[in-house]
């Protein structure tokens, strides 16, 4: 449909915009910022908080600028007396139902409502205190997400996130009028519903109604316990986002500073989840090739396409919604959970520590990893493999608490061993990255040649499209892989669970011709994870992705199978991918769950 231009005036300045543009976006083009709360660039229009109301000449009502498209000849005032009065009232009303316990609040200083209250100089509440759930206990049933209804301003961003981006709908609007609230199915606790712990709701909550469970004090306790040997691992996506906690541009590569900061925080060793990402490629790549061989040579009934298993939010989603397809899920643990048992076995032995005295902490872009670490099957080492999971945001807070001037830190390197990694590992952080890393290795394993893409960059599977598909023709294979000669390897990638659903429905209907599918629960992959700095939007995530790919290109080694520490661990400990030890430590099984 061709776009017509619409002419209007905003604050007396003429502007011409595409038909269908909202007043809010037109005003943004003129650099007039209209305050918003229920609006979020990632979400569909709601128009329910009403703070973005503007005055339209000749109109009786103040339209919500986020929800009203421009029309020809419209004259808009974004800050008239009428608008100011209405906006102030609305903020006052929101505050009257909000537990404004700001000094004690986890979001103090990061709260959109607080900012607005400050901008409009809302002092004493003129209205009566209506906070509904002040005395209600917080829902801390989930190891990932904390829900505090007394802070909720009912903007429904979380509800739209959960339904439209993630197709989960663990959170929904219930009741009406003065009782209207955001709740779960039958008001059950968060750990007892379909919640995948992805944390996308947290990323979009303007207040502290939804936050991550934080484990900062527990980690500091471990650090200061002289009997504990505390190692920390950092996920790929954290390094291009942690800088945002300190005012840096999204996508700034702060790997070296992050390592330095972790050391100053007192971690005994600073290690890298990227190492186990490389290991994941070895295990998962081998698993894929094995499945293909079983299907093509042995003619066995094998569950294909194989689905990646790095994203714990995705795994729980599948357990709830597609339990019939769990056989398709790779048995590989996520890199975080491969790291844990290796740290408490292989590594403990190398550094001569008793695993009982070890504490494994991970820094993740993710809230679902907190849940993952708690899964009962994640005790391959005989201990709890990963003791504490902190989000990128929590790490930022720890660094601030410790008074470390992040900006001024000199770059430092990860400790060895379990610290060496490749470019293939770091791209795990962006959607399509696991697939790209797997292809770099698998193609070379099978053909003896590098993947046929310039500079190893498999561009067709990069980018932010919700579902990406590609095929790679395999030819001139090594003799031992002759069964793959001429095979067209079909792959697909989805990020954001609503997109995962598209592929899963195809598989269930038998319409998918893919061999291998990468799925990440969060939009744009881990760089858009539920534990990443706020705010989030597509522009920010694109910058983080750019940082990830720069980091990859800057690495000397860019293929997982060339990681020397990976070679070493197979030689001296694991012996072979999918071997006996791998099976015990690096692979797992899944649990079918119900929708309710």
């Amino acid at each position, binding site marked *: 449909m061709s776009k017509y231009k619409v002419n209007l005036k905003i604050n007396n300045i003429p502007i011409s915009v595409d038909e269908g543009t909202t007043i809010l976006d037109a005003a943004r083009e003129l650099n007039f910022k209209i305050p918003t709360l229920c609006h979020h660039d990632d979400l569909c*229009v*709601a*128009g*329910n*908080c*009403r*703070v973005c*109301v503007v005055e339209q000449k000749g109109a*009786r*009502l*103040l339209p*919500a600028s986020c*929800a*009203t*498209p421009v029309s020809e000849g419209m004259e808009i005032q974004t800050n008239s007396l*009428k608008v100011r*009065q*209405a906006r102030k*009232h*609305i903020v006052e*009303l*929101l505050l*009257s*139902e909000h537990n404004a316990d700001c000094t004690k609040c986890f979001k103090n200083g990061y709260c959109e409502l607080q900012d607005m209250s400050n901008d409009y100089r809302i002092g004493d509440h*003129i*209205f*009566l205190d*209506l906070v509904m759930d002040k005395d209600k206990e917080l829902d801390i049933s989930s190891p990932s997400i904390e829900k505090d209804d007394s802070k909720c*301003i*009912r903007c*429904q961003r979380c509800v739209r996130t959960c339904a439209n981006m993630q197709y989960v709908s663990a959170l929904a*609007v219930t*009741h*009406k*009028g*003065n*009782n*209207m609230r955001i709740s779960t199915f039958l008001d059950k606790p968060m750990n007892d519903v379909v919640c995948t712990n992805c944390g996308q709701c947290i990323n979009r909550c303007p207040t502290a109604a939804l936050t991550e469970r934080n484990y900062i004090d527990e980690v500091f306790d471990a650090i200061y316990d002289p009997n504990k040997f505390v190692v920390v691992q950092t996920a790929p996506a954290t390094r291009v986002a942690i800088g945002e906690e300190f005012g840096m541009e999204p996508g700034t590569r702060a790997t070296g500073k992050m390592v330095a900061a972790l050391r100053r925080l007192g971690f005994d060793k600073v290690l890298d989840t990227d190492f186990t990402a490389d290991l994941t490629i070895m295990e998962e790549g081998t698993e894929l090739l094995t499945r293909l061989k079983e299907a093509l040579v042995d003619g066995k009934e094998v569950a294909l396409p194989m689905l990646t298993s790095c994203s714990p939010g995705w795994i729980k989603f599948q357990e709830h919604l597609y339990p019939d397809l769990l056989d398709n899920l790779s048995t590989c643990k996520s890199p975080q959970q491969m790291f844990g048992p290796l740290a408490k076995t292989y590594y403990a032995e190398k550094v001569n520590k008793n695993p009982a005295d070890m504490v494994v902490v991970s820094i993740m872009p993710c809230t679902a990893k907190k849940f993952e670490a708690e899964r009962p099957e994640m005790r391959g080492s005989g201990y709890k493999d990963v003791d504490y999971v902190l989000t990128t945001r929590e790490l930022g807070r720890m660094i601030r608490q410790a008074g470390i001037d992040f900006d001024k830190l000199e770059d430092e390197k990860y400790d060895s061993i379990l610290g060496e990694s490749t470019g293939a590992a770091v791209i795990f952080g962006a959607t399509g990255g696991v697939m790209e890393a797997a292809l770099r290795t698998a193609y070379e394993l099978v053909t003896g040649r590098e993947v046929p893409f310039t500079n190893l960059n498999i561009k067709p599977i990069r980018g932010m499209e919700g579902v990406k598909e590609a095929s790679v023709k395999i030819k001139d294979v090594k003799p031992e892989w002759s069964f793959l000669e001429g095979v067209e390897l079909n792959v697909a990638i989805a990020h954001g669970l609503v997109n995962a659903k598209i592929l899963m429905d195809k598989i269930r209907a038998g319409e998918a011709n893919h061999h291998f599918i990468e799925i990440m629960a969060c939009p744009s992959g881990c760089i858009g994870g539920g534990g990443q700095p706020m705010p989030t939007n597509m522009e920010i995530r694109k910058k983080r992705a750019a940082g990830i790919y720069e980091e990859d290109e800057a690495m000397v080694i860019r293929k997982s199978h060339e990681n020397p520490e990976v070679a070493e661990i197979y030689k001296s400990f694991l012996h072979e991918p999918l071997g006996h030890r791998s099976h015990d430590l690096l692979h797992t099984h899944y649990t079918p769950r119900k929708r309710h």
Partner: protein
Amino acid sequence: MEKKIKKVDLIFGKVDHLDILNNSFQRTRDEIILDVIDSGLRGRGGAGFPTGLKWKFAKNEEADQKYVICNADEGEPGTFKDREILTQVPEKVLAGMALCGYCIGASEGYIYLRAEYNFLLPSLYKAIDQFHEHLKAMKFDFTIRICSGSGAYVCGEETALMESMEGKRGEPRNKPPFPTSEGYLGKPTSVNNVETLVFALMIAQEGPAKFKEMGTFDSRGSKVFSVSGDTPTPGIYELELGMTLEQFVEEFGDGDTKAVQVGGASGFCVSRKDFRSTLIGFEGIPTGGSMMLFNSSRSMYNILNDYLEFMEEESCGQCTPCRVGCQQLLKGIEAVKRGVKPPSYLEDLQKLSDTMRIASKCGLGQSVPNPFNSIINNFREEIIY
């Protein structure tokens, strides 16, 4: 008294509805729509949008499917006229829907029936079955179904009604788009009140002139009123528009009327001193039919308190001004009554209600200020002491 209130019998009088339809189908859609526009008929649910224009907008949309919805979610406190129309002359309502369907090009119609009116279902289904038979004989393709509400007042708001029909929470939508372009299931939809549809049918029969000559410039024709409260003659009356409240009270009052609530909980409270100057209609105070009379034994504080309790509970809760505003108004007058807040707090609340009027998402929040301000302005002392 200049003139007596004229009682009219357009709505409840028996007519050959099939004959009207047959004749209408001989005419073009535009002719009928023009007649409805010309008659000056405005929506009888309360908001008063010109019916002919609504039909014209829906007609002008191109779509593979369009819908007619008869809004029978009669939830306004003090209104019970649609129930009576559906009981006494359901065939006229159905014919009005078919007429609308003919005009806008819809082959499907729905009656959104208030949950509390489910007792009407058997008789309505019977009427619909008969009507379908007749339409078949007339070779007119139009199917009517009933969709039962679940008891939410806000679902009388047309977009919330359609959300409810689609199986979602009954929450009003953002407008635009308006239902005539994107309504039920995203298709052009004309949502009309029960009474409006019957009037449209009668205009098709009688021609616009007869309708137009009744009432005033902005409020043509007659209207069915639900009269309740302190009156010796409660009930349902079809009256010519254009009367003043004085005339109305003369007819229906008990001799001690101190106030009339025109338009239900979302309408205005008029006190005795203004009866003479207040016209019932779009020039003065419009009503969807509800007329509640109060005599001097009534506490206006209690009445306002009841209305606000109703609104506080019946707000869908999605938009801030309405959800929180209703609670603040209610708790606010309670606080003033108890002396927790000074009488001057009422002015703060009135300012707040002004914000609710212009910043709320739908008609519910926008009209809470009507009873609030009119009762506070007229009976301030009853609220405070």
